């Protein structure tokens, strides 16, 4: 029972962030038919830009940044992610998407991923970083942890879950209720039709990339202080979000659920005696690959393309 509670909280906290990344992947895929291989690195850009604006490149302790400066840093970081995300669409994805060149958009988005990664590592060259946390979670419980029965629960986790759910709700509201959201809906279901009725498709899709980047970036910033952080942490966020999204065929909100399931699965595997931490990331990814393969084998060849 205690294990279940611990798994549920830590799995939900990680999974909710994966879920938001997965929704970003699905939004991008629904609009363009393209998979954004640099999504994780764009998230890394957001997190490290926030860190840079908040504390420069010097080592920080988790409490050394004031709330006001941190808030400004977050805004700066997110603005950068929004610009880079939209730019990545206009300059790296769209030219190849229009030509129908799969190798083009795969190559260009991967190239962007490695370029971003190199630049970030060039500035932040230590193996991993502690991210400042302006909120006083360490004052709660036993240095930020509660012991409930035999379970250990990080107080931050509940905050991460709450923020992620709020972000999911806000994104759902934007996509369902605003003119921007309905225009995206139109683009996703019929690009040509959307063009004919005069929607600025290219600009809309660029903005959707920015939205996906900002939402996932903010979730990553909120989660970052919970543990050590480096470029790979963010790249893995992008990869796990992609795995969750592809597992449910890029269905927009099912992707969020799939991300949460991915997180719970990881936490569960890490906490059961017959598996353990080494299997935590490997097993869910292998399961997604098996699912993809099984689905491809079951579908008739004629429908494959």
């Amino acid at each position, binding site marked *: 029972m205690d294990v279940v509670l611990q798994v549920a909280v830590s799995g939900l906290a990680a999974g909710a962030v994966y879920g938001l990344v997965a929704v970003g992947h699905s939004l991008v895929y629904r609009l363009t038919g393209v998979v954004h291989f640099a999504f994780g690195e764009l998230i890394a850009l957001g997190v490290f830009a926030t860190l840079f604006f908040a504390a420069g490149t010097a080592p920080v302790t988790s409490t050394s940044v004031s709330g006001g400066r941190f808030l400004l840093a977050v805004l700066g970081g997110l603005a950068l992610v929004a610009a880079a995300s939209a730019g990545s669409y206009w300059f790296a994805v769209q030219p190849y998407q229009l030509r129908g060149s799969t190798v083009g958009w795969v190559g260009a988005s991967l*190239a962007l991923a490695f370029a971003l990664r*190199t630049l970030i590592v060039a500035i932040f060259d230590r193996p991993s970083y502690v991210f400042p946390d302006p909120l006083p979670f360490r004052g709660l419980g036993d240095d930020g942890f509660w012991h409930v029965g035999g379970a250990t629960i990080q107080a931050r986790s509940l905050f991460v879950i709450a923020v992620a759910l709020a972000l999911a709700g806000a994104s759902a509201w934007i996509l369902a209720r605003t003119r921007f959201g309905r225009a995206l809906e139109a683009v996703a279901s019929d690009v040509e039709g959307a063009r004919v009725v005069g929607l600025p498709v290219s600009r809309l899709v660029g903005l959707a990339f920015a939205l996906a980047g900002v939402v996932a970036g903010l979730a990553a910033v909120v989660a970052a202080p919970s543990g050590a952080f480096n470029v790979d942490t963010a790249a893995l966020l992008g990869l796990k979000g992609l795995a969750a999204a592809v597992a449910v065929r890029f269905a927009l909100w099912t992707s969020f659920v799939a991300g949460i399931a991915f997180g719970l699965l990881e936490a569960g595997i890490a906490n059961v005696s017959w598996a353990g931490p080494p299997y935590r990331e490997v097993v869910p990814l292998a399961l997604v690959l098996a699912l993809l393969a099984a689905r491809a084998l079951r579908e008739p060849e*004629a429908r494959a393309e």
Partner: protein
Amino acid sequence: MTATAAALAGAARDARRAWDVRATAGAAVVVVAAAAPIVVSSSRLEDLAAGLYLALAATGLALAVGVAGMPSLAQGAFMAVGALTAAQLRIHGGVPTLAAAVVGAVAAAGAGVVTGVGFVRLNRGLVAVSTWILAWLVALGLEAFPSVSGGAQGLLLPEGPSTTAHYELALALVALAALALVALARGPFGLRLAAARDRRAAAAALGVPVPRLRLTAFVASAAVGGLAGGLSVQLAGIADAASYGPYLSFKIFVAVLIGGAASAAGAFLGVVVLGLVSVAADAVGAVENVSSARFHPLLAAVLLLAVLALGGEGLLRAPRRHRLARAEAHPEARDTVSQGWLAGRALSKRYGDLVALEGLDIDVPAGEIVALIGPNGSGKTTALRLLAGTEHPDAGTVESEGRLARTLQATATFGELTAVEHLLVASAGARRHGGLARTLLATPKARAEEAGATARAHEVLERFGLGAGGDTPASQLSGADQRLLMIAAASATGAAVLLLDEPSAGAAHAEVDRLARVLAGLRDEGLAILVVEHNLRLVRTVAARVVALDAGRVIARGTPEQVGADPAVRGAYLGSQTL
């Protein structure tokens, strides 16, 4: 004995004919490179040998990316499988160098089968996604299980062959891999993969076993990666798990694209370019006193973006295709027109609430042309799909005898292939000696069959009036010729039953007459032909019997005259045409 001599002489003649500037350049590079150990220092030589093993892995990947059109991003993972298998065998089994590397290649091939069997059926974007997840999965697995990978310390291997031996072996293997790639790309295996790459549905309609060929290419590519991994790890003397991350897969993919995925030497050239750029960067870094190694991914990324911006074809373009000279058709391999027929009984199909087809009975006997007519949306194409077996009926049965081939409604030629190659793609299914291994070894039977198939392809083109355009890319033919070409290809499969979906779509009067002559010729050879047609002029000219559909139901059947006079048919066509 004399037969062997003749076969060897023939092979030598073909090799001489195929020899061109590229071959000379390639041979010169190999000869000069083979002499490098005389002048190059030992540590430099180790770098060069490592680069050659990387080029070997990249040449293997070029088969999947260039020939088969699958953007695989997991070549580094297959290298890792080969490397760790070989390393464990060397350390714990005392297995000799080459044997360990070969077992490593087999292990990688096994991993290729397990993953590829599903992956090769995905579309290109999802091939990239799934192989990228695989690349990460292997990297994370190596990190998580230090007992397998040696962890941060790595696995120390026992002393093996000298650096020079490694270098010469690597060079020979790269040259062999490039030659194999040329042979495969030109042979029936590569042609069919190229057809499936350009138009998957049209290739499948011609009977090309797309998943099986792609899986073969994927597994061969993985095996070469595994071999390269199994040898390079012994060159390095240590298995370092961290060096098999996703970046390795990316780097190999970039090398293939920089050099040109369509060219055999492209992967090698790509590795050379990446290596030179890294060396230049290191030289600049040494002057500026910064470590430049961590900027290598950025350089690879920038090079890739530049290549893509220039059109993505890479430095070396696809060579102009060389074909074996036309030869006498091999007596064994002559066309035997097989007799066949096709029959559908009470076929029904629904899509949700829409009744696409209801209770269709149709017979297509040998030596007869049957036409299926009806307005748009009347269920003609559905009927064709059910009869061809690409979709299953909700009710009813399809029976047939003899091989079946189909053409698609849209003009769907394999753009980069020539007209002759289209027919070779189609006829490859009936060949017995055109597989991967026989093509690679160019066995006498395979060569004779190749010559015979080429000769017959030219014959068929002549018969269809396409003889003049035999060696031009199909995309440069006129629309009418492209449609005729696909019918020629369907007949070249050796099929006894042809299903043709609107062969006259958009054709002018004169072209319709030409088409009618061609179809009548095929009928007289004994083929059973079903045409779905809008053009009633063509139907009246060639069809013995006509089945008219409207809203999924048969509204009339009989001779063209009977059906043409039927008021229901006239009503369905709004009286706009008369037979």
